[in-house]
């Protein structure tokens, strides 16, 4: 067994221990950069408030972006794909059985033809 615990992946390799060490070094560098940041920042003051162009800030519970609003653009761009794919999921057991039977028949044709 490799003492460095390197995984041979065929064309390459993967060593998570080195990766974690590298990530730790990157983290230290990030902390150093962070420590060079603005020292005059005052927590809990108006400096924390978002700039909303003079509009009143809504209640925090009202500004959470809910799941239904996420990836709207992706779903809209892929509308043609989803228009065909989603209706196949009818929830009807008859359809489930038909798909299964159909695939069994298809497998049989493929296996027998290419025997």
């Amino acid at each position, binding site marked *: *067994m*490799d003492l460095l*615990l*390197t*995984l*041979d*992946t*065929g*064309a*390459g390799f*993967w060593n*998570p*221990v080195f*990766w*974690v060490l590298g*990530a730790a070094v990157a983290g230290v560098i990030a902390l150093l950069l962070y420590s060079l940041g603005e020292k005059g920042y005052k927590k809990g003051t108006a400096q924390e408030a978002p700039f909303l162009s003079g509009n009143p800030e809504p209640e*925090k*519970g009202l*500004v*959470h*972006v*809910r*799941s*239904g609003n*996420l*990836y709207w653009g*992706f*779903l809209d761009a*892929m509308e043609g*794909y*989803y228009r065909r*794919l*989603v209706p*196949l*999921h*009818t*929830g009807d*057991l008859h*359809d*489930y*059985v038909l*798909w*299964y039977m159909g*695939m*069994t028949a298809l*497998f*049989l044709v*493929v*296996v*027998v033809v*290419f*025997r």
Partner: protein
Amino acid sequence: MIPPFVVDNSPALMVIVPFVAAFIAPFAGRAAPAVRALVVGGAMAITSAITLILASDVYAHGTRLYVFGAQAATLAVPPDSGGIPVRIMFTVDPMSALMLVITAISAFAVVLYSLTSERHHSGLGSYYTLFLLMVTGILGMVSTGDIFNFFVFLEILSIASAGLIAFRIDGGVAVEAAIKYFVLSTIGALAILFAIGIYYGEYNALNMALIAQRIQFTLLDQLALVLIIAALAMKCGAVPMHFWTPDAYSMAPSSITALLVVASQASLYGLFRTVFSLYNITLNAACVGWLIIILGVLSMVVGVTMAIPQKNVKRLMAYHAISQTGYMLLGVGVGLAVLGNQPLLDAFGYMAMEGGIFHIINHAMYKGLLFLTAGAIFFRIGTYDLNRMGGLGHSMKWTMVFFIIGALAIAGIPPFNGFASKLMIYESVFAFNPVLSVIAMVVSILTLASFVKVFHSIFMGPVLPEYRDVREVPGPMLAGMGILALVVIVFGLFPSVVVETLVAPAAHALADQGMYIAAVIGGGA
């Protein structure tokens, strides 16, 4: 230290203990819920320990043969049987041992979690009976060397699973999901039984090694192969026979869903066992290999793209389970496609199989973990609807940490275990067909995107007024999730150890039909 009786009889004990405990549990519950918890928890701990003892014995000493009712446990072929192994036997090779390890870890974590997560529900006597029967079914399926016995354990598993999917009733929706699962499982089991009848009629045998030795790949054998492949591909949730999966996974209690993942993988094991150990190079490996690869690619793509628009966290995770099954089918399918071509098998075939098989164990751990985190959230807020969640990271920090570990692992982010197995699949499949590898990588990106959405929806944002009083889940539930999270991290940090110790022997055992036959017909390894 371990009594020789336990080691020698571990194949039988690992199914007997949960089977007997399944029927003791309801009576124990009549005495007191604590007694039932003790019986169930104790039985599962003993089962897991015996299972791990057996697996380690197999990895140390090679394939284990256990013949029920024989004078000697390894006496596969009685002297007066005409060379036919007539008794039911368990043939536990490294591939079976890997599945045993998966089941032992997952089932123990799940029972630990269930003892708390289900404590307020009624009908727990039935719940634990069915749970332990599920474990019995899975352990039997992945250990048996007798194809009819495989069918019996598959039926035990299916019936118990259907009962548990319907457990919460949920206005009849859970029952509907269970009926769908049960009808499809029964039709699939009938197909498998028909295939077994074909083998028995043709070869006068039910022992898998003997059938493998005699198989001719006649037209009837081709029919039997198709019946088994289709049934088990449906059972493991391969697209386009996956429709039952989101229904059943989302309606079952989350702890059961975690075990259903393992159950699906037992079906996947049956599929791989059939094509490799039963048929091997007698079939057109390239043709059947590509069939499995296409199923894998369809599962990956359709699974992940159907996951993204889901609003119910468990349905979303169920579609991801389908998608991840695609990786396993892809990896092992590539290995099958080049079976018989030794240079290609050595160049990338074994690596693809190892990647696919490594992904089986990884997936069982991180997907089980993710389903348990979904259950933890339901335990506290009573909904799976992502649109009604938010800000739970403030109050359920440990659950959030476990979710992050599972989500990063499933998305293939280093250094978690999903990355290692996916990397093996990417590289080996790239050598076979680069397009397939690119598809697999794109699916990983979409998986990450999907789980970013889930993470944001559940845990991020301000504390919502309706969840102001939400607390972290109790310790035993955290412990159940913690076990799986620990395995995800350890397997991710030391993948080479896992691959060399557990995965590579499993892949080679699967590909080497001669070794499987010799272990039985030769009278034991």
